[in-house]
């Protein structure tokens, strides 16, 4: 495949994530790869994609080269349809107006639970991580896409702490915890695209990224992976995808 353009792990993450979005969706995006991927989707295939940001923004069109350093910066409001309070934009999720929540992740487990609070015992943590932000609210209240780096220490059997709930302990435990709506939909890494089994709610591989083997993925994962019956191979990033991505983030803030 000598014609395949060269790309970084961050770039394929952003591009494959953007492919998960559909035109017309209302997407609540976190900063970093999610924001970049949602903006990329808007430019490539989804002009009617509506992006919400935690800072209180509905329908932003972020400018190329002016990616905001957080979702609470004024750059997030560029050409927005509406600005509103931070709590109010989260309440839109609770009411059900949002199709997809789209976040990064520090640590994930087999049921799609995310940890961004503590490494080690929360009472005496090895590392105090930044915490949930809107992550807990978003993952509690809508369907989630998570884009994250694939490392063994990040893909664990059980997270040290559930910051943002996936399917909790699998099965029906999410609904029983008081979260009848939403749940993990996709996890995208530089190695593969994952979904979740409809019954057990365990993570499973849906597609391998180009040039990645089953063993590659399993070796980088801290629990036994389920593979879908028919594993697809994802098409590599196109020149057009890469060019557009690089136009959006010329300083490589999020695609280094």
């Amino acid at each position, binding site marked *: 495949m000598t014609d395949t353009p060269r790309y970084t792990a961050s770039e394929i993450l952003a591009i494959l994530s953007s492919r998960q979005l559909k035109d017309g969706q209302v997407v609540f995006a976190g900063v970093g790869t999610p924001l970049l991927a949602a903006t990329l989707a808007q430019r490539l295939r989804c002009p009617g994609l509506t992006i919400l940001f935690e800072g209180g923004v509905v329908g932003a069109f972020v400018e190329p080269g002016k990616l905001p350093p957080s979702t609470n*910066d*004024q750059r997030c409001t560029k050409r927005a349809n509406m600005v509103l309070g931070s709590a109010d934009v989260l309440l839109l999720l*609770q009411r059900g107006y949002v199709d997809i929540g789209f976040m990064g992740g520090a640590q994930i487990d087999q049921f799609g639970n995310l940890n961004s609070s503590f490494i080690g015992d929360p009472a005496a943590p090895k590392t105090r991580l*930044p915490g*949930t932000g809107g992550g807990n609210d978003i993952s*509690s209240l809508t369907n989630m896409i998570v884009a994250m780096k694939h490392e063994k220490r990040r893909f664990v059997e059980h997270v040290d702490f559930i910051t*943002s709930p996936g399917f909790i302990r699998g099965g029906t435990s999410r609904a029983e915890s*008081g979260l009848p709506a939403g749940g993990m939909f996709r996890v995208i890494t530089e190695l593969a695209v994952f979904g979740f089994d409809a019954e057990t709610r365990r993570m499973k591989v849906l597609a391998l990224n180009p040039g990645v083997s089953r063993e590659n993925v399993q070796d980088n994962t801290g629990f036994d992976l389920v593979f879908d019956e028919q594993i697809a191979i994802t098409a590599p990033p196109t020149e057009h995808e890469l060019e557009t991505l690089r136009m959006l983030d010329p300083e490589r*803030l999020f695609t280094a």
Partner: protein
Amino acid sequence: MLNAQVEPYERLRENLSQRDRSLREKVMTLEEAASFVQDGMKVGIGGSTMSRTPMAMIWELVRQRRKNLSCSRAITSTDGDILFGSGVSDHIITSWFAQGILWGLSKVMRRHVEQGLARYEEWSHMAVGMRFRAGGMGVPFLPIRSMLGSGVMDQRPEAKPIDCPFTGEKLLLVPALNPDVALIHVQRCDAYGNAQIDGLQFMDIDLALAANRVILTTERIVSNDQIRRAPDQTKIPFFCVDAVVEVPYGSAPHECFGLYEPMLKHMEAYVGQVNSDPVEGMRDYLERYFYAPKSWNEYLSLIGMEEVLEASQRGRSIYND
């Protein structure tokens, strides 16, 4: 005991009836306004992450060496580092605490929390907002549908899971948060404290209504006539406000919507310095930028004219087509 943190309604009302809510000018200096903040108080901080942070007021509290403040904010950035690192605060209620997504973890926050020097009390972002909102509405709680089933809820016995008396559904009741004082930075207000906020308002309206005292810092003090010409844009009414301080660039090195973006060179240098040595690096930073300058304007001149002007150019560009 846990419930003691929710202010009884009669005490809330009593506090408010004692407060001078009349239409009166309340313009003062940072030094004077700081007198509303006493050691050990609950302090709500406006803005979010690097936006409309009431940095000048925080700067003044550090200079006056306040201590043991229990601070609450939507999302905490380098302001939280400063509050912990200076000893002004040993308890922060927030949903996210790092310097900014660009720089990874805050070594200052990690040192304080992991060594037990200070407490980071984590709530979901919406829960923080609903706690301020309940406080601003004068009710002891609001119901939410997040945090359920998570470790975040398990860590927060202050919240109460219930079965809804109407539907039987599981809900979480989050307790009202009524800070003793709120610090809020706005684009403009009048001498009475009628405040107009452009762009993102974050949780500032609820916070202003919830707090028992409000200190407003403002980029400009405008006439009451100017406020009355655009009453749609007034977000905080004067009777919630106890002090008005005019401080141009009062959020520096953070941003203020429509006026200036973050001063990222300064921020990067700061992050490099404190994360390489969270003790000495912070001590040196505070000495140089917080204790040494004779005035806020001198602090700004240490950040530097070029960076301030460049941030302003980017800030104003949000209104460009």
